[in-house]
């Protein structure tokens, strides 16, 4: 049988990096084929090559045995290649049906598309209301819109880019059922992920990428996490040393925090209670879009609308205090967006230290530039940031290095409470291990730490206590060593003991994620 898709020696060079270096792989009809690799290994570039969004510099693509040149996504779709994007390519103010319609090349009517959505939804258990605007849908529902859009093109190959990062563990199982049904019907699936468990549970074959090159093609069902991980990373990261926490005073106390959302795209916070004590790491788990960014903004002081008395730092009410006041009281925050929030992209690293570090400001607000540059140079050295120097623009750094710089900037300020959002998003494994190590070291020195992450593995690795956010509410805390993935997964849909009744209109788990409209 001819293979559905064959890649031979695909190479794509960018000015600074070779994203794909002679990559070859083969996907059979009906096969679920994983592409495994850590961030920056070249997975996304490879998928864009297949989907026609990026043109390779060298190499050959065979489609059902025939050499083809895929020049743009339209041509890819015409061949029968469909893609579900990691960051959804949806239009918020349009309805689900309109979104699907825009992804179809044929000139069917909107009414016909609406009909077909209902049909496909029934066939594959992808429950989608075609007439609802996308901004009112939960993340899980949005993904289903993307998948339905892909399926309506009747694809022979479906590409999914990190599809599970936005789902609860239970929703992941449902997605897998859908994919298995599809594969059984003959559709090949390219499944891009860096999650080992999922690949072993779902996929028939697995191509591992490291640094843009193929480091192996294996049957994941016969591999272990450790063996896959070695192929992906090259070496196993050092295990983190953990000591028993020595608890101190309550550093952060959030009591009955309610905060109405800023606009229809946001989430309203309701009755949030949270304690973080000195000497412990508390993790906040949850599917994205359930109020984590809103809570972070209220704690960091970027949003000062919190009612008086609802947020206390070392016993002092800071609900309305500015970020600067909170910082002086020992609260430092590392946001999830590095470029544009944690750092100004076009300013130098030296200038970027001034965002949160004020030691170089002299009389009359005059800056001592040499001190500013010295601090940046020191941070670059101490935290092993790869950068040309203190004058390098923040945007010239890789995501991981910039994160190390920002983390370093805040750690070096000796915070009494460190709040970190998505500490290792888009960071390679080595840097991620460094960052997690720094977080634990700070904890052992007696600081209080609050971490928000969408990666459950990470939270289980570094936290002492876990809470879960869903629909703008917060679960009770649970000792991490006593928690299980299943339990936290159920909580991520808002179903923890003592939680209010699930919303009437939302019987399924994924429905429980979305905010009221």
């Amino acid at each position, binding site marked *: 049988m001819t293979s559905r898709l064959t890649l031979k020696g695909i190479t794509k060079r960018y000015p600074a990096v070779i994203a794909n270096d*002679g990559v070859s792989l083969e996907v059979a009809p009906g096969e679920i084929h994983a592409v495994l690799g850590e961030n920056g290994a070249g997975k996304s570039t490879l998928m864009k090559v297949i989907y026609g969004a990026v043109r390779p*510099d060298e190499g050959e693509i065979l489609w059902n045995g025939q050499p083809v040149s895929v020049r743009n996504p339209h041509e890819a779709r015409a061949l029968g290649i469909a893609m579900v994007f990691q960051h959804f390519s949806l239009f918020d103010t349009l309805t689900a049906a309109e979104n699907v319609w825009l992804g179809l090349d044929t000139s069917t009517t909107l009414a016909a598309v609406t009909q077909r959505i209902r049909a496909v939804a029934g066939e594959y258990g992808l429950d989608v209301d075609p007439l609802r605007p996308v901004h009112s849908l939960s993340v899980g529902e949005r993904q289903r819109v993307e998948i339905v859009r892909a399926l309506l093109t009747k694809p022979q190959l479906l590409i999914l880019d990190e599809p599970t990062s936005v789902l609860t563990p239970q929703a992941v199982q449902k997605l897998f059922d859908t994919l298995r049904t599809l594969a059984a019907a003959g559709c090949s699936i390219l499944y891009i992920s860096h999650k080992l468990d999922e690949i072993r549970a779902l996929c028939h074959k697995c191509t591992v990428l490291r640094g843009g*090159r193929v480091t192996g093609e294996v049957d994941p069902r016969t591999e272990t996490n450790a063996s896959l991980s070695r192929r992906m990373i090259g070496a196993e990261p050092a295990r983190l040393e953990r000591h028993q926490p020595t608890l101190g005073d309550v550093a952060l106390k959030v009591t009955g925090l309610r905060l109405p959302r800023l606009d229809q795209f946001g989430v309203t916070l309701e009755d949030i209670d949270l304690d973080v004590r000195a000497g412990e790491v508390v993790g906040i788990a949850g599917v994205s879009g359930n109020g984590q960014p809103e809570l972070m903004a209220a704690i*960091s002081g970027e949003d000062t609308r919190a009612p008086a008395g609802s947020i206390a730092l070392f016993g002092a009410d800071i609900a309305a205090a500015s970020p600067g006041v909170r910082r002086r009281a020992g609260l430092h925050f590392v946001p999830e967006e590095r470029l*544009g*929030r944690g*750092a*100004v992209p076009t300013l130098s690293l030296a200038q970027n230290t001034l965002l949160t570090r004020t030691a170089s400001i002299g009389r009359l607000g005059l800056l001592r530039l040499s001190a500013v540059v010295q601090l940046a140079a020191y941070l670059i050295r101490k935290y092993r940031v790869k950068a040309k120097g203190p004058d390098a623009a923040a*945007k010239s750094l890789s995501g991981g290095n910039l994160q190390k710089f920002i983390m370093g900037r805040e750690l070096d300020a000796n915070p009494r409470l460190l709040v970190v959002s998505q500490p290792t998003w888009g960071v390679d494994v080595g840097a991620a291990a460094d960052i997690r190590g720094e977080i634990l070291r700070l904890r052992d020195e007696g600081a209080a730490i609050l971490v928000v992450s969408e990666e459950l593995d990470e939270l289980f690795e570094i936290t002492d206590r876990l809470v879960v956010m869903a629909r703008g509410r917060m679960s009770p805390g649970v000792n991490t060593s006593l928690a299980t993935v299943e339990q936290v997964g159920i909580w991520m849909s808002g179903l923890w003991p003592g939680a209010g009744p699930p919303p009437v209109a939302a019987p399924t788990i994924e429905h429980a994620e979305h905010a009221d409209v």
Partner: protein
Amino acid sequence: MFRLEARPEPSRLMSVLSPVFAVAITLLVGVALFSILGKDPLDGLFVFFVEPVKTAYGLSELAVKATPLVLIALGLAVCFRSNIWNIGAEGQFILGAIFGGGVAIHATETSNKLVVVLILLAGMLGGMVWAGVVAVLRDRFHTSEILVSLMLVYVADMLLSYLVYGPWKDPNGYNFPQSITFASTTQIPKLIAGYRTDIGVLVALALVGVFWVFVFRTYAGFQLQVGGLAPAAARYAGFSARRAMWTALLVSGGMAGLAGALEVAGPLGQLTPYVPAGYGFAAIIVAFVGRLHPVGIVLSATLMSMFYIGGELAQSRLGLPKSVTGVFQGLLLFALLACDTLVTYRVRFTRTRAARAGAPLVGAEAVKSEGGTG
């Protein structure tokens, strides 16, 4: 064919060269324009770039016109750096003239010489009031500062017109729409006897220094810039966006107002409907061409001032409409914006279309299959 490729970091060299390229392009278009109109391009260039600096009188006139441009552009640079789009400096200039003129009208030949200071302060106040309206509306009602500040130019224009046609009209002025000629005590002291240049030039140059320190050496200046470049980062750092907005608008309004007061109490000596000469709009171009940098602004204001004088000379010498100045000003900003692309992008030339289409797929013989199969 070519395509643009983002540079990892903005090019400092291009940042300096881009205004030079822009001026060169504007000159080329100017030469072409003169040729089309049947004028000798050399005569044209001579009128614009040599004539104004040939004589002491010319240099003095150059300074007279560059002074308000520098003042207004300094303020606008602060605004644009903080991403506040105040494009109504012309209106703030007019209000400065009205406030300053209002004080000057009431001065007499026996007034204390310090009335000049009062006039200038009143002018600044006037500009700040006008910019303050923009700030209040943006702060309270999120109203676009672009449209409001621009609309206020028309309102200011009408206000001035009302005053000089109405309550402030010179009773002995043969019904001309103009105020009385101000008492000599209100005259901004001249720099050199016999020339129109006054100490406004020194004020402007001193302020260039002040703004340089403010923008590059103070925490407040840094905060404003962060607010302009990355609002989310400013919020994260705790820099108040409201304070930045108010500061930027009041500073630029005050500077435009100061320029207006200097103009009426200096070269003009009375209020007329012709006080607004477009300095407020030209200063936008001055600010951008000067790279929002105080020293760059001095250079670009000098250039722009040459355009003004050259335009007047072109009218008398070459029989061209004076509005040729406006054409060059607009062209210069256009050319600058296009050249600025080179600061953040570099141009890559690609091969022909056909080669591009064929490029992705190289024959299989050139490719060695890598990686095992199992």
